């Protein structure tokens, strides 16, 4: 019996930022990331009938996105293969022979590890935002991530400023708790 229902009308509002951050940390290019997210939504729509409801919508979309990212790397790699690669590594004869081992990234390199973790920060933040109640998530995003003016948000959502600050306060408290659990 399906535990999760699927509703593509809300996909973009609910998941696009999460998927986008997930993709950027893996492909390092904004435009490509946006295209891959787009492809994922379209592919999801096409194969909607295969959604069995065993996992949440988001997990299911991520699994499609993973395939898309792999495909993307396959594509650029096959392009690379067509060019001849010539590299002059060591000009001195002394170190000749031991080239590859030397060039493998040091796994304990502090800075490399830091960047790796940082690149997942966006995923963690958007994960926590998606755990917020819908209204809080909306206001928090507009205020904090899109940097809208307080007045603009109030007008658009038809709430008072003190309303807004109460929502922001609740959202921030929940965000801190969520990030402390999942991130720090």
């Amino acid at each position, binding site marked *: 019996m399906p535990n999760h229902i699927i509703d*593509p*009308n809300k*996909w*973009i*509002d609910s998941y*696009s*930022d999460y998927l*986008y*951050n997930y993709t*950027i*940390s893996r492909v390092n290019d*904004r435009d490509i*990331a*946006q295209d891959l*997210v*787009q492809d994922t*939504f*379209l592919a999801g*729509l*096409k194969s*909607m009938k295969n959604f069995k409801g065993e996992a949440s919508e988001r997990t299911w979309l991520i699994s499609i996105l993973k395939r898309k990212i792999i495909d993307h790397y396959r594509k650029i790699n096959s392009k690379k293969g067509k060019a001849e690669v010539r590299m002059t590594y060591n000009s001195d004869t002394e170190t000749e022979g031991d080239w590859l081992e030397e060039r493998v990234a040091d796994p304990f390199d502090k800075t490399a590890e830091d960047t790796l973790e*940082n*690149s997942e*920060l*966006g995923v963690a*933040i958007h994960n926590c935002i998606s755990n917020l109640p819908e209204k809080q998530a909306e206001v928090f*995003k507009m*205020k*904090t*991530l*899109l940097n809208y003016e*307080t007045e603009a948000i109030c007008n658009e959502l038809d709430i008072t400023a003190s309303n807004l*600050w109460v929502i*922001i*306060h609740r959202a*921030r408290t929940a*965000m*801190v708790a969520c*990030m*402390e659990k999942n*991130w720090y």
Partner: protein
Amino acid sequence: MSNIKLECHEANHLCDKNQYKETSFLERVRLIIHLIYCKACREYTKRNVKLTKLINNPKVNTLEESQKECLKETFEKELINHH
């Protein structure tokens, strides 16, 4: 406003506003004075500032409204075809 002293919930409100740089100079002074003697609000402020720092990290990416509209447009065309 007559009293310089703040209640804790007022201090937290100013602290929230401060995360978006929407406090006046006087408000900041009142907040700082409150923080001197209130440990609970110091703790709240500390965590709040930490959250702001995380969010302002350039690695946190958010799609612009225009990009989202662009996604939606393509997606909705497909959605109509789908039904």
